[in-house]
């Protein structure tokens, strides 16, 4: 793809890349509270504020709950709004996540994915954001710092699109991405500014038939966040679902437009297929694991094994059609889940993938591997074993054990 703009190569960790993207997106309000491994994002942004590099109003709240609340209120007042959190912080926000999506506030939030207590653990897994999957937020998981940067910029365009108008979480793996220096190519400020634009407010029609911007505005008084009972609540929720449905298209459009500008693409924006076209066996994963998995696939391919990878970039809305299409010729699949759904017989990604394949003409054999909880490291050798297992399953022609734990003492 054509790379039309000169880019600057920088050494940034994932958190710094996220903060830099938010800075270039010219956010009006950041309200945040520090938590490992997200802290670098708010620290970095504080430096931009201290050095006068941004016009942003930065609110260091007394809790994550108030941080997200302030974001909802700021966004409702018409401001472009960004925040960041992780783990316990995201869990504390839980109540307000639903309010943010219900009030249709296009907030962008970077999550440095981290395990949840107890026991206390600061390292990376997906328990925090997977637990928020039904809160009405779009969820994008990234593979590296570059993708964190690119995705934050894209997220504002997705969230603020009037057909979507939903908040977006961009998840980057705690420490593996948040704290690891990588080469990141950054677009020039004006290119980002032009791509993101200023926030265009959605318009609504008043009871008097007037078209007005959807925000708290004394010139056009509006009641936002009302009580809606049995007679209207359901319609509000149905509209949110429509926003999610529209997001499937908008995410791809924004991704493609950004790819034309930057020369970087991530599959179709929803999923990335890696050596999947003729693959017999495949894994599916989200986040930084995809990078390791690509190396494993390359090795296996060299050995003549028809191995592939489906990288799940967008988890919400779940790209059912894209996943179904990508897996249509694959015979056996291992889903990699970096979180647990206790008593749920497999992790969140596993549930979604199996659900997506139910109506497919041909079904691959599908098993789940829960791995890496609390930041437990896994090396390529262990991931190779997953492909070996899947191969054996393929030859046996049946699933003997549905849910596996990888890299665990048992």
């Amino acid at each position, binding site marked *: 793809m054509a790379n039309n703009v000169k880019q600057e190569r920088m050494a940034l960790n994932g958190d710094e890349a996220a903060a830099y993207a938010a800075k270039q997106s010219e956010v*009006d*309000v950041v*309200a945040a509270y520090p938590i490992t491994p997200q802290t670098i994002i708010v620290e970095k942004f504080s430096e931009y504020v201290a050095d006068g590099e941004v*016009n*942003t*109003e930065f*609110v*260091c*709240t*007394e*809790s994550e*709950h*108030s941080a997200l*609340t*302030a*974001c*909802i*209120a*700021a*966004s*409702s*007042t*018409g*401001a472009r*709004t960004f925040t960041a959190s992780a783990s316990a912080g995201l869990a504390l926000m839980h*109540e*307000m996540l639903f*309010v943010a999506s219900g*009030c249709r506030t296009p907030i962008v939030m970077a999550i440095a994915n981290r395990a949840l207590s107890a026991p206390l653990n600061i390292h990376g897994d997906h328990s925090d954001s997977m637990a928020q999957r039904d809160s009405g937020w779009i969820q994008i998981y990234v593979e590296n710092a570059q993708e964190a940067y690119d995705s934050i910029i894209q997220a504002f365009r997705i969230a603020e699109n009037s057909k979507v108008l939903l908040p977006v979480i961009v998840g980057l793996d705690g420490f593996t991405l948040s704290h690891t220096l990588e080469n990141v190519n950054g677009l020039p400020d004006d290119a980002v500014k032009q791509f993101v634009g200023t926030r265009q407010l959605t318009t609504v029609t008043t*009871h008097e038939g007037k078209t007005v911007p959807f*925000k*708290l*505005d*004394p*010139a*056009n*008084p*509006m*009641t*936002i*966040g*009302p*009580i*809606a*009972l049995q007679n*209207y609540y359901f319609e509000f929720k149905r509209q949110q679902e429509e926003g999610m449905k529209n997001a499937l298209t908008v995410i791809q459009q924004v991704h493609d437009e950004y790819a034309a500008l930057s020369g970087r693409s991530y599959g179709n924006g929803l999923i990335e297929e890696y050596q999947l076209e003729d693959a017999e066996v495949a894994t599916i994963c989200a986040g930084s694991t995809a990078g390791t998995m690509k190396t494993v696939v390359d090795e296996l391919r060299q050995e003549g094994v028809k191995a592939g990878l489906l990288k799940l970039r967008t988890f919400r809305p779940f790209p059912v059609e894209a996943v179904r299409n990508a897996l249509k010729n694959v015979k056996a699949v291992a889903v990699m889940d970096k979180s647990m759904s206790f008593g749920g017989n497999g992790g969140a990604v596993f549930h979604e993938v199996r659900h997506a394949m139910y109506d497919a003409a041909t079904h691959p054999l599908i098993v789940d591997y829960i791995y890496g909880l609390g930041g437990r490291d896994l090396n390529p050798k262990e991931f190779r074993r997953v492909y070996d297992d899947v191969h054996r399953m393929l030859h046996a022609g049946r699933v003997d054990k549905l849910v596996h734990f990888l890299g665990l003492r048992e």
Partner: protein
Amino acid sequence: MTTQEWKFTARDIAEKPDQFLSGHRACAGCVPATVLRLVMKATRGPTIVTEATGCMEVVSSIYPYTSWAVPWLHTAFETAAANAAGIDAALKALKRKGQVKEHIDIIAIAGDGGTYDIGLQALSGAVERGHDFLFVLYDNEAYMNTGIQRSGGTPLGAATTTTPAGSVRPGKLQHKKPITDIMVAHDMEYVATASPYYWKDLLTKVRKGLEVEGPAFLHVFATCPRGWRSDPANSIEYTKLAVESCVFPLWEAVNGEYQLSTPSKLIALAPQKKKPVTDYLKGQGRFRHLFKPQGKPVLDEIQRWTDERWAKLLKKCGEAPKTA
């Protein structure tokens, strides 16, 4: 803060269009609804209102209707002050970009549950950060919206559904949390108490709070006839008796300097006018059990505590204590 005195005459407020409109679903005799109507009569220009979950939020915003003629936001129960913080931050940022041109006042409204209890952390944080907003606490002394459960603002001896008057417990076992003193301890420029019986005093205090560049706090006493088991016709009378008995004295603290407001000042000057607490308590069903013989020690304690708090307040206000 300016020292301008506002002349809110009955004509002025009658002629100013309502911004909290009729048609809401508040109960007969609901003083919080009266308080909101009065508060909105004291605005000085473009205003955004944000409310915590609670009675006044649910009665005024039942979709697709609204009682608010101003922009209004509700997010959750514990969030009134955090909402104000977000609105304040947005207005500041959008002003810098020229997208907002005029000054816009922010009023955050919460009941006692949303202020004394679940909303205290957000309130403390927003005040510490110095956001420009007026926080109005309408204190009806329990969680009325959920059916009369005790809060940190419920007074000693009051029967609520979580502190019922039983054979061994005389209603709530604790006094009210001194919320207003807690706010004064935040080194705020303006903190005051008000009662709607003294409506001009209330309007003036709202305006003073709005004039402050930074956070201001107004604690308004507000009868709930459903929760207090009192006659709706007497709702405003109780907001007078609470002041006359010094159960709820009226004062302001400007930059931490306490001063009595006129209705309480008159009592300080003529202590014989101070009514016994029983004048205020009697007639309220939530205190009915205290008027039985076994309730006497609790009544005595309420009087003792009220006198002690009043004496402390007089000291803070630099008033020489007088005996009746």
